[in-house]
């Protein structure tokens, strides 16, 4: 009984593990993927030791396999995240996230005079510009650039 409980928390029979998330954006990742509404088992940890990130976060989602299009959205805040697909307790696929070319409805334009911040119900839309390892977002509407350190998730 006790053993089974431990297993439930630590190992995943089948599902998706998102690893190498910087701790400070863990909840943003949960938010972007809409995991707060998930109905299956989900566990997460934050402030775990990591050689690369210092403190990292990890999310384990049971019996769900978000598609690449959704997973790639988290590249905005966690470009180094690693995805492991688990089936029957085994990692069957490892992948990293790819920065998408367009970002719709996730991020906020940093220009206070932008129509997306003035009118209600305007869905934000950005073209992603890759700029020496940085991600900049160019607003489809006001054409101003929101740079990586100013990216805010709605």
């Amino acid at each position, binding site marked *: 009984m006790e053993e089974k409980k431990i297993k439930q928390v630590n190992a995943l029979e089948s599902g998706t593990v998102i690893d190498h998330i910087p701790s400070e954006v863990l909840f943003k990742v949960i938010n972007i993927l809409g995991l707060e509404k998930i109905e299956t088992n989900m566990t997460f940890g934050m402030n775990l030791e990591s050689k690369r990130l210092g403190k990292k976060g990890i999310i384990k989602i049971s019996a769900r396999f978000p598609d690449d299009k959704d997973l790639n959205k988290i590249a905005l805040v966690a470009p180094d995240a690693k995805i492991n697909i688990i089936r029957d307790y085994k990692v069957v696929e490892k992948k990293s996230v790819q920065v998408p070319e367009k970002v719709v409805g996730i991020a906020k*334009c940093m*220009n206070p*005079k*932008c*129509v*997306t911040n*003035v*009118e*209600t*119900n*305007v869905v934000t839309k950005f073209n992603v510009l890759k700029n020496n390892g940085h991600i900049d977002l160019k*607003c*489809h*509407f*006001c*054409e*101003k*650039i929101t740079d990586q350190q100013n990216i805010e998730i709605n």
Partner: protein
Amino acid sequence: MKNKSLISISDYSRDDYMEIIELADHFEKNPVQKIMEGKVVATLFFEPSTRTRLSFESAVNKLGGKVIGFTDAASSSVKKGESLKDTILTVAQYADLIVMRHPVEGSARYASEVSTVPVINAGDGANQHPTQCLLDLYSIYKTQGTLENLNIFLVGDLKYGRTVHSLLQAMSNYNPTFNFVSPKQLQMPNEYKLQLDELGINYYEHEEMKENIKHADIIYVTRIQKERFSDPMDYEKLKNSYILKNKMLKDTKENLRILHPLPRVNEIHVDVDDNEKAYYFPQALNGVFTRQAIMTKILGLK
């Protein structure tokens, strides 16, 4: 271009620029025609800009079309809190084309995406004003006979001036040399200089307008606004260094023309007005022909 909104100068290609220039030339020769008869153009000016509005309305009237609209947000339903989307959707029922000026950046793009008729952006805050840019291109073409290989001086507020940014983007298609003359605080932003670097276009930056202008084909002057300076003393110290005076034009090229988007304050001295190189008033008239060309293209009449 038919049925397509014009929001940003980058919505048009190099070929489109030339089509507009050729058609503007046609309207300059025949400004009064009845080809817009039965067409209704809505001019929605959410902030006043009399000059731009009159230019559009004159263009429509000369072609026999009708204009409806409002001249500032205070006299419209916007004041009662109507959303931009609802205003546009309603007006689109009454008009074949919407010309819109709005203080909010990106509002014109948004309007074009909710509207069922094409939208022309007549200025959205500090963002874009593409019809100004096209009339500038027409003015340059008309006075130089070409857009290729010109030496263009952009003078004044190069940091916030949307007209100079659009002109820089459009003229970058034609192998220009740019000279930027501005106070340090108002220099051309880096993102535009990087674009020029990528395209391999030469540009030079100056803090003063001196004998360097003797190589210029075009001098495009813009206003320096006091409110752009955090320290008003900086403005007082600088304000007179960027005034173009007639005596400075002595050794300049024969084909040089001086442009300005107007209204002018004092950045071009009135003693330049009588010089044949002054072109800012004809430039404003070119706005009517250029807008006739843009509207008839979008309505599919030409």
